[in-house]
């Protein structure tokens, strides 16, 4: 199993009885977790379960934290030792910030020269090289607001990779990008992982992302379970993680997690929207955009992801 590949070495990241809170709300509660060197780990869990906080704890970015997080054996609250790359959730980025692509990419090197206010020739060359490597060379002078979704993700990956990190942290790297970009990002992460880079990413996409990763950690304030999704994506574990009623379908070696169709919602909506239903019937036979929407929402297995991403499923494991 991939996760045990370097069992002899001490883990790269270790959480020992870590609790985090914002105000009075406890977000993580006595978490113990080890991330081995060379692992590719997905962190899943419902909104507000502490996925992003888990990532922030690894960089010492949680103000109220008890317990100890170490990276490469050193507590994260002290001076930095290991090189860490950080990719934020695209939705949280201020795209109107007055900065060019090259400047944003160079931010990944700022920890090395914290007091310099300007870019050196070496900085520029490093930024352009990593942009080239990610297939977005030539965008260096562009304003960040002038990027497409796929380019945005690549620019922030470039910013993380410019420091040549041993540990790459990504917050929802597939959220807010189209399916093609999502697949490209996952393949890129698989490639980086093969070179030995340890990668930890949060995701809310169980079928299209988490199910294909070699190792998944289920978080809901505590670590509910961790392991190969083949093993741990069971109704029991996922329902405990999401506090919901999920169905797991296994077919041809693929795992599909379906949230149980909200069947009572349908009748509830029909009762409260009699007039609306009536209006719909008037349009029968005339394919109306609402009808389409309606049918889609009540599919018994929503987003069954027959999207051809099975190859992604296999590659990160090799």
């Amino acid at each position, binding site marked *: 199993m991939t996760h045990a590949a370097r069992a002899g070495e001490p883990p790269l990241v270790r959480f020992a009885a870590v609790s985090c809170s914002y*105000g009075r709300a406890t977000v993580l509660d006595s978490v113990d977790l080890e991330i081995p060197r060379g692992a590719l780990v997905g962190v899943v869990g419902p909104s507000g379960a502490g996925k992003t906080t888990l990532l922030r704890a690894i960089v010492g970015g949680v103000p109220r934290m008890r317990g100890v997080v170490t990276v490469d054996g050193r507590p994260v609250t002290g*001076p930095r030792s290991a090189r860490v790359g950080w990719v934020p959730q695209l939705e949280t980025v201020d795209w109107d910030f*007055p900065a060019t692509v090259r400047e944003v990419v160079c931010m990944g090197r700022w920890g090395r020269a914290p007091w*310099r*206010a300007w870019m050196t020739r070496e900085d520029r060359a490093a930024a352009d090289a990593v942009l080239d490597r990610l297939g977005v060379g030539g965008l260096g002078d562009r304003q960040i607001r002038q990027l497409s979704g796929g380019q945005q993700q690549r620019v922030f990956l470039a910013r993380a990779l410019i420091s040549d990190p041993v540990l790459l*942290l990504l917050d929802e790297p597939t959220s807010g990008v189209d399916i093609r970009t999502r697949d490209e990002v996952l393949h890129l992460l698989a490639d980086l992982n093969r070179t030995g880079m340890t990668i930890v990413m949060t995701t809310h996409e169980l079928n299209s992302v988490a199910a294909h990763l070699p190792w998944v950690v289920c978080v809901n304030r505590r670590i509910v379970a961790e392991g190969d999704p083949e093993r741990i994506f069971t109704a029991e574990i996922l329902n405990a993680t999401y506090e919901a009623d999920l169905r797991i379908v296994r077919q041809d070696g693929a795992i599909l997690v379906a949230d149980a169709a909200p069947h009572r919602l349908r009748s509830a909506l029909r009762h409260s929207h009699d007039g609306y239903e009536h209006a719909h019937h008037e349009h029968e036979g005339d394919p109306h955009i609402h009808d389409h929407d309606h049918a889609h929402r009540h599919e018994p297995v929503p987003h069954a992801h027959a999207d051809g991403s099975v190859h992604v499923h296999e590659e990160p494991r090799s």
Partner: protein
Amino acid sequence: MELLVSPFLDNAFMLRALAAGILVAVACGVVGTFVVLRGLAFIGDALAHGVLPGIAAALLLGLPGIVGAAAGALAMIGGVTLVTRRSRLSTDTAIGLLFVGMLALGVVIVSRSGSFAGDLVAILFGQVLGVSEGSLLLQAGATLLVIVVAVVCARPFLLLAFDPDLADVAGFPARRYHTLMLLLVALTVVVSFQTVGTLLVFGMLLAPAGTGALLARRVGSMMAIAALVGALSTWAGLLLSWWLDLAAGASVVLVAVAIFFLVLAATSLGAARHPVGDRAR
């Protein structure tokens, strides 16, 4: 041409006002850029008014106003930090509470002194036409300090504004730099209040930097545009005040705000003419 320069050449106090105003404009352009990018406008406003009771108390005790202003600003920063850390209230509630509290306290203290209205107007709107050489030197020192701190701390400050998580990754202690940024705002407010007044220093902090944000593609040029707009507003405002007999400090800020809205109108018009825009998605 004569109309545009002669007031400054013929009157020493007008020249001192122009010099002081330009120094304020440069400091406010640099600090205001961080205020706008980090979204600190409200605390900037609160600092600008929070210094009032300090100044009033200092004047009552016969101390220099600037000492009181510094004490007021520190009390404001300490209070906001304390309330947000000790309670579940959001920062803007904490700022708002301290803001009205300090303002009311200031007015109460001022009302104890004999010349209520005169003192209050002087504090709020400044005495740009009565700048002494001493305070001009002080202003120059403060502006220089602001520039040095902004250059040295440019990277942590920008990360704090753009991506606080990356600031943690890079090993910049976020709280420390946040406090340092607030102290820089406080320094600018405290030193500038003698020139443009506490109320108007806030306008000089926001309007030129806001104009810079509309036009600039980089942080450096945003600061440069802000400083330039501020200096231009000082010159135009002082001229308006001279020829039309208007309040000087208020005229300066009015010009700065007018420039912001003119640029906003021009850029929106430009955007409307190219409806596809430059946003690729």
